[in-house]
C-alpha cells in the first residue's frame, strides 16, 4: 500500500495552474464542491513514486490570503484550519517567471503558516524573451525550499516536481513577516487558545475572524474581545504586512533576477491591444466574437442535440418493449428516461459555450472584453465581467449563473445573477418559433427582411433590454457597504493550450449534469406525475367516455383519449383552477396547463400543446401550428390564438421565470431562498403585467 499525501496546488491566476494540474493528474481528476459553498473543487491522483501517491487539490487562484471573492475565501479557510478536510500536507506554489514578484506574495504567507512548500516556476521561456532569467539555485537557497523549473505547455520539469514532492520536505526555516511587537500580546493569546502552530496562524485569526466560517460564535467573540482590548485595526495592519512582505521579496529578486538589456517583448502584445481595444475595431471584433459564439450555440449545437433527442426517444421506445407494463414501467419510460434526456440535451450547448469561454480566457482576450465593456456595464450596476454570464445566458441561464463567480463584488454579482434569466435562452426558442410562425405572416419587408426573423430578433433584444433596465432598477434598490472596484490583470496574449480547453469543457459539463441535473430530473418527474395522474378515477372515466365515441381512425382516438386524460390530470385541474388568473391575459385553461408543465423547461410548452390539442406526441412544428391556428375561442367564435393572445404569450415567455432549474441554481449560488424568491416574484410580475398590457392594448 503506497503512502498517500495531500498536496494543494496554489498560486495566483494566469500562472498556468490548470495546465500543471492537468499535467499532474491527467484524466484521474474529479470535480466536487468545497464544503459549504459551491465553488468547484478539482482533485486528482498523481503517482509520485511507486511508494507515494499524492491527492492533488487545485485551489482557486488568489493573489494573497486576504480574500475578496468567494473563491479566494476558500483558499484562506483551507489553509487556516488544520481540521479542514482539504488541509494539505504539502503545497505546490506555481509562479509565473515573468511576474515573480506578485506570485511570491502568497508564497511568503504560506511560508509563515508553516507549510512545506515546493515552488514551481513556470514560463521561464517567456521571461527569457522578456529579457531576463532567474537564478533558480540562488532562489531555492534564499527561500530555503525546493524550486523546480517547469514548462506547463510542454510538460518539462514535471518529473522533477514529482520527485521533489515525494521527498520528505520540511518547512522553510525563514519567517517573512513578524507581527508588530505591540500585536504580539493578542497573537499569543489566540495562539494559546486555539493551539496554533505559528504566530502567523494566530495573526490570520485576528485579521479575519469575522470571515472565517469554521470558527464558532464563541471563538469569534473571544477574538473580537482580544481585538478590542488591543485596539486592532485590520486594514492598517494589512497594508503594513503587504509592504513588509514585498520588501523581503524585492530583496530576493534583486539577487536572483539576471537582466538582459532587450526589452521589446511587450511590443507584440501592445500592437494587438491597439487593435483589439480600438474604439471602432475593438467593438467590431468583440461583437464579431459574440456573434460567432451565438451562431455556434444555435447552429452547430443542433446536430448533436437532435441526435440526443432521437437517441432518448428510441431508448424510451426500446425500453417500453422490454419492461413489463405498470406504474413503475411508466415512471421509467415516460418520467425518468425523458427527464435524463432533458438534461443531456443541454450538454452540446454548454460544451460549446465553455469551449469558447476557455479559449477567450486562455488567449487573454477575456480581460480585454471586460476592459471594453466595463464602463457601460457599470452604469447598469453590473461589472465588466458580467458580460460573460449575460452572453452565456443566451444559451442557458444555468451555466451562465455559475459563471458569475468570477465577479468579486457581491452586489454586482447578485444583480448579474438576478437579471441573467431575462436573456432569451435556447429553451425559449421552440416556443418563440412556433408562436411567431403562428401570428406573424411569412413575408418580407423592404424586399429582404424576413418579418418572422425580425420579430424573433426583436424578442431577443427585448430580453436584453429588460435585463439591463432591471439591473438599473436593482442598482438603485439594493444597498451594500461594499465598494465596487475593478483591478484586473491584462495577461500577455498567447495561443490557447487545447488540452486545457478540453478539460474545462469536461469539467463544466460534469458540473451541470451532476449538479443541476439532479434537480432537473426530480422536477421533471414531479411534473410528469402531475400530468399523468389525476384525482380519483376521473381520468379513467373521461378517457373511457372519449374512447366510447366513434372515430375515423385508431390514431385519432388515441390522441383524443390522451387529451382527455391530460384535461382530468392534476396538471389539468391546476390549469382550470388558475384560468381566472390568466384569463385577463387572453389565455384559457389549455394554455394554463402548458404554462404549468413548461415550468420544467420552457420548450415543454410545445409538446404539451401537442398533447392537449389531441395531436399525440408530435413535435412537428407545421402540424402544431396548423392545429393552433384552427383552435376556436368559444366566447368569440373566432380563433383562440389571435395576434393579441400570441403577443401576450410571447411577452410572457420572454420575461417569466419559467425554469425551476435556474431557480435551483440561484438558490445554490446565493445560499438561501430569499433571492430566488425575489427573482421569481419580479420576473413573474414583469411577465404578467406586460402580457396583460399587450393583450388589452391589442385586443
Amino acid at each position, binding site marked *: 500500500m503506497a503512502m498517500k499525501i495531500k498536496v494543494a496546488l496554489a498560486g495566483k491566476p494566469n500562472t498556468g495552474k490548470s495546465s500543471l494540474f492537468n499535467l499532474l493528474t491527467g484524466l484521474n481528476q474529479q470535480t466536487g464542491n468545497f464544503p459549504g459553498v459551491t465553488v468547484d473543487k478539482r482533485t486528482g491522483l498523481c503517482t509520485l513514486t511507486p511508494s507515494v501517491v499524492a491527492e492533488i487539490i487545485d485551489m482557486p487562484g488568489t*493573489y*494573497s490570503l*486576504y480574500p*475578496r471573492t468567494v473563491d479566494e475565501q476558500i483558499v484562506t479557510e483551507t489553509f487556516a484550519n488544520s481540521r479542514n478536510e482539504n488541509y494539505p500536507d504539502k503545497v505546490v506554489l506555481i509562479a509565473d517567471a*515573468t*511576474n515573480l*514578484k*506578485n506570485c511570491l*506574495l502568497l508564497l511568503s504567507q504560506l511560508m509563515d503558516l508553516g507549510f512545506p512548500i515546493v515552488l514551481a516556476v513556470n514560463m521561464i521561456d517567456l521571461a527569457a524573451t*522578456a529579457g531576463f532569467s532567474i537564478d533558480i539555485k540562488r532562489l531555492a537557497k534564499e527561500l530555503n525550499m525546493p524550486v523546480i523549473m517547469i514548462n506547463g505547455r510542454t510538460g518539462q520539469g514535471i518529473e522533477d516536481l514529482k520527485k521533489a514532492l515525494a521527498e520528505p520536505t520540511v518547512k522553510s526555516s525563514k519567517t517573512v513577516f513578524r507581527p508588530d511587537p505591540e500585536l504580539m500580546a493578542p497573537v499569543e493569546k489566540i495562539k494559546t487558545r486555539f493551539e496554533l502552530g505559528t504566530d502567523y496562524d494566530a495573526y490570520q485569526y485576528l485579521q479575519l475572524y469575522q470571515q472565517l466560517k469554521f470558527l464558532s460564535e464563541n471563538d469569534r467573540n473571544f477574538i473580537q474581545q482580544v481585538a478590542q482590548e488591543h485596539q486592532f485595526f485590520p*486594514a*492598517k495592519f*494589512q*497594508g503594513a504586512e*503587504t*509592504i513588509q512582505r*514585498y520588501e523581503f521579496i524585492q530583496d530576493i529578486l534583486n539577487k536572483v533576477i539576471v537582466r538582459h538589456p532587450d526589452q521589446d517583448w511587450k511590443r507584440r*502584445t*501592445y500592437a494587438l*491591444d*491597439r487593435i483589439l*481595444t*480600438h*474604439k471602432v475595431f*475593438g*467593438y467590431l471584433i468583440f461583437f464579431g466574437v459574440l456573434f460567432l459564439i451565438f451562431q455556434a450555440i444555435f447552429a452547430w449545437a443542433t446536430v448533436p442535440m437532435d441526435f440526443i433527442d432521437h437517441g432518448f426517444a428510441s431508448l424510451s421506445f426500446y425500453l417500453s418493449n422490454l419492461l413489463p407494463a405498470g406504474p413503475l414501467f411508466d415512471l421509467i419510460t415516460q418520467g425518468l428516461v425523458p427527464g435524463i434526456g432533458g438534461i443531456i440535451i443541454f450538454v452540446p450547448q454548454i460544451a460549446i459555450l465553455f469551449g469558447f469561454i476557455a479559449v477567450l480566457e486562455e488567449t487573454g482576450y477575456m*480581460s480585454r472584453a*471586460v*476592459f*471594453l465593456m*466595463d*464602463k*457601460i456595464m*457599470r452604469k447598469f450596476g453590473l461589472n*465588466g465581467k458580467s458580460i460573460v454570464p449575460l452572453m452565456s445566458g443566451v444559451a442557458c441561464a444555468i451555466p451562465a449563473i455559475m459563471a458569475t463567480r468570477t465577479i468579486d463584488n457581491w452586489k454586482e454579482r447578485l444583480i448579474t445573477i438576478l437579471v441573467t434569466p431575462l436573456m432569451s435562452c435556447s429553451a425559449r426558442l421552440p416556443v418563440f418559433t412556433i408562436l411567431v410562425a403562428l401570428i406573424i405572416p411569412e413575408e418580407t419587408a423592404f424586399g429582404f427582411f424576413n418579418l418572422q426573423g425580425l420579430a424573433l430578433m426583436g424578442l431577443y433584444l427585448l430580453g436584453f433590454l429588460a435585463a439591463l433596465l432591471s439591473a438599473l432598477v436593482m442598482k438603485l434598490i439594493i444597498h451594500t457597504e461594499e*465598494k465596487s*472596484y*475593478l*483591478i*484586473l*490583470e*491584462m*495577461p*500577455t496574449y498567447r495561443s490557447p493550450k487545447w488540452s486545457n480547453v478540453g478539460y474545462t469543457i469536461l469539467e463544466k459539463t460534469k458540473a451541470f449534469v451532476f449538479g443541476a441535473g439532479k434537480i432537473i430530473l426530480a422536477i421533471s418527474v414531479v411534473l410528469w406525475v402531475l400530468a399523468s395522474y389525476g384525482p380519483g378515477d376521473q381520468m379513467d372515466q373521461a378517457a373511457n367516455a372519449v374512447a366510447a365515441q366513434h372515430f375515423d381512425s385508431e390514431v385519432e382516438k388515441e390522441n383524443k383519449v390522451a387529451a382527455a386524460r391530460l384535461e382530468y390530470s392534476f396538471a389539468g385541474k391546476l390549469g382550470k383552477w388558475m384560468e381566472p388568473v390568466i384569463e385577463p391575459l387572453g389565455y384559457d385553461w389549455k394554455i394554463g396547463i402548458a404554462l404549468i408543465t413548461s415550468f420544467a423547461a420552457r420548450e415543454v410548452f410545445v409538446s404539451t400543446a401537442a398533447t392537449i390539442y389531441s395531436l399525440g406526441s408530435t413535435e412537428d412544428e407545421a402540424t402544431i401550428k396548423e392545429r393552433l391556428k384552427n383552435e376556436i375561442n368559444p366566447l368569440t367564435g373566432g380563433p383562440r390564438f389571435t395576434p393579441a393572445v400570441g403577443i401576450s404569450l410571447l411577452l410572457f415567455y420572454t420575461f417569466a421565470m419559467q425554469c425551476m432549474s435556474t431557480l435551483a441554481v440561484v438558490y445554490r449560488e446565493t445560499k438561501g431562498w430569499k433571492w430566488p424568491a425575489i427573482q421569481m416574484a419580479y420576473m413573474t410580475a414583469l411577465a404578467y403585467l406586460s402580457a396583460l398590457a399587450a393583450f388589452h392594448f391589442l385586443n
Partner: protein
Amino acid sequence: MKPGETAVVAGFSSPELSPKLLEMGFLPGTVIRFNFKAPLGDPICVTVGNYDLAIRLNEASTIQVLS
C-alpha cells in the same frame, strides 16, 4: 497623466482600497506606466512592475504619484 507617461507610486488616499492595491503590486516607490485608456475613457491600462492591469479611474485616482 498622459498615455505613455510614467510615475512613481507615493501613497494612497483610500484606506479601503489600499490593501488590495498593495497586493497587486502598487508599492510606494514602484514605477508605473499609463499605457492606454479603454475606448470609453474608463477603465485604463497601466503597467506595474512587469505586468499590465486594467483599473478604473476611481481606483486609479486613489493612488498618489510623484511624476
